[in-house]
């Protein structure tokens, strides 16, 4: 097993865990946590493909991941703010009870 394969396996696992968390958790914060996990799995893939790719000298993968982490931070802030706003409105963060988006 090459190190790349190992990395990809970890990232795939991480993505699966994140997906499962995002899909199954009823608490909005935990769903957000799952989303973060999936995002970080993607970041791990970026790093892995850059490190074991054909051109590891250029810092391209690192750059992308740093941007991605910045975006993730912003996204987390926005997501948490949304959750707080939702909580204030509905007095709950249970996603099953928040279904106003339905048609």
């Amino acid at each position, binding site marked *: 097993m090459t190190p790349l394969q190992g990395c990809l396996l970890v990232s795939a696992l991480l993505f699966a865990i994140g*997906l499962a968390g995002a*899909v199954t*958790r009823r608490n909005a914060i935990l769903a957000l946590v799952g989303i973060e996990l999936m995002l970080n799995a993607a970041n791990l893939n970026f790093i892995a493909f850059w490190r074991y790719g054909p051109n590891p000298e250029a810092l391209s993968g690192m750059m992308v991941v740093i941007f991605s982490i910045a975006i993730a931070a912003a996204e987390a802030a926005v997501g948490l703010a949304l959750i707080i706003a939702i909580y204030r409105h509905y007095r709950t963060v249970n*996603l099953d009870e*928040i*279904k*106003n*988006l*339905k*048609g």
Partner: protein
Amino acid sequence: MTWIAQNLWLIPVLPLAASGVIAVNKQRQRKLAATLAIGSMVLAFLLSLCAFSATLLHHGDNGVFREVAGFNWLQFGGQWLHLDWLLDPLTAIMLVMVSFVSLLIFIFSVGYMEHDENFMRFFCFLSLFAAAMLGVVIANNLLLFFICWELVGLTSYLLIGFWYHKPSAAAAAKKAFITTRIGDLGLLLGMVWLYAETGTLNFYADGHGCLEQSALATMVTHMTAAGMAVSTAIGLLIFLGAVGKSGQLPLHVWLPDAMEGPTPVSALIHAATMVAAGVFLVARVYPLMSAHAPIGAVDIPPSDLAETGITTALQVVTWIGALTAIFAASIAVAQTDIKRILAYSTVSQLGYMMLGLGVGGVAVGMFHLITHAFFKALLFLGSGSVIHGCHEEQDVRKMGGLKKFMPVTFATYAIGMLALSGFPLFFSGFWSKDEILHSAHGWAVSQIPFYLGCAGALLTAFYMTRQVALVFFGNYRGTGVMEQGSDADKSAVQHSNTPSLHHSISAPHESPAVMTVPLVILAVFAVLLGFVGTPAWPWFDGFLNGEPPGFNFSKLTEGGTLGLMLASAAIVFTGLGLGWWLYGKRQRKTAEEPDVLQVAQPAAFRLLENKYFVDEIYDATVVRFNAWAAQFCDFLDRWIWGGAVLLVTWVTLGLSRLYRFTDEFVVDLGFDTSCETLREGGGEISKWHSGRVQTYLRVIGVALVVLVLFLIWGRKS
């Protein structure tokens, strides 16, 4: 232009206004109605006297005095319709007669209708009638004449049917209206034709009128398809109107039935004035009737017939008049209703007037019209007084001996009867009838009208004697107090103001002064009027023809006049004697006893009693044909036209049903189904949109997996 000719319109407008005011007032204001009606008639009478004196003043200036005034009524195309009125001797004499007789009858009506509930309505109609009749008299325009003529017909209808709750009165009113309509159709056609020929309906208009020389000259030369001069054809059409209104032979049936109306109405309308309107019409259009005399075809006696040409139209007038005179007089012999006897007598006398117009010209006919108006009004009012006094009994067989109960009525009635019979020398009827017979004797075409007229005169004297003998002589044959207690009680209450009622409740009684005074006045005129038209002093003739009258006793003996007078006097005495011998000397004992003539000649009497079955003949022919035509039209309407309409309806209905079906079950249903499906599908799909973000995520995840698997396997293959 005299003042009165300018303002002649006031005469008809005054009673018209009175009638209008009465019409809008309340039912109970009897005094107001009577005052207005009589007041307006007094004014109209005074104005008529002014008009009469104006014509007298200008009498004999140059030719006939004639003044026209009027106004433009309405414009059609480039032409104006004028409504003009005319003052000439004919108008003046009629105005005085109509307004005077109307006035007396109005006064009489106040007494006669005193207890009637619809007193106001009666006076409203009566005033309207007077207005229309005066309008007829003053009209210088055939259109105005026709309007007033129809108004007269209308009021006649309204007044015959005044007691419309009686079915017989309602039927009589209808009969009168429809029968006269036949004549009026002729008049209308004549009017239209006259307008087409001459372009004017004015009688006299400074040489442009339709009765003046230029218009007559064109009409005489034009020929119709049948080879008859246009003037004759128009004259005959107009005469048809006169036949209807004056109850001449084929159309006389309505006049006796018209006696269903109140007696003053019978006196005013169906004896004195309206029925004379037909005679007046012929007199008015006399120039038209007499135009185109065949020159040299006949030798005209110099005395009376100098102006008279004998045209076809005048011959028709003469024959119809003569036949009507004898026909109606013979019917009157066998009647038992006091008013019907007088009605047939009226028809007969109208026949005399027509005869007079036909053979002798305007003056002869008009003279009898005027004298007849007075004595016939007198007779009718007298009969009204009798009927009033006998508690609404009209059957002469149930009267008798009234001489001692009603002396004033008897005296005046006797004068009227003698005048009508033509009792020599002292009564007006003698002079006027004698003049007619004299003219008929001199008629160049045939002597038959003269003999018919003589026979009619004999019958007239006979039936009047019969009537007077039955009503006033002998013993009272009316029903006693026991049989009609309730009626008698009622009339006792009604007539409690009459003095002669103390001895017996149901005995006949004299009428109040308001009714007897007009009788006396009329009686005076019935006597005196004759003297303005004697052969010795033919003032009336001269007045109408614009010639100065001469006083000449020798005329009495000239030209066979004296012989004729003696002959007619002999005829009258024969009639009177015969009547008295049959009815006066040997009075009937009871009301049910058969008539003397009935015993002697049952078949002839039956024929006369049933008025020659004219009504029955009309029933069997005209009325039945009419009913048949109506039924035919009904059939056409119901089945042919109605069927066509029904067919169209059905087709339309079927088509619309089809449309409805396609609409409901094809178009709508398809549309509805697709809409429903779409809506339901949307509903189904919208269920997926649960609003649960995690479900969406799950689906995305599964889809991702499926996509990945698809890519992997897709690449492999």
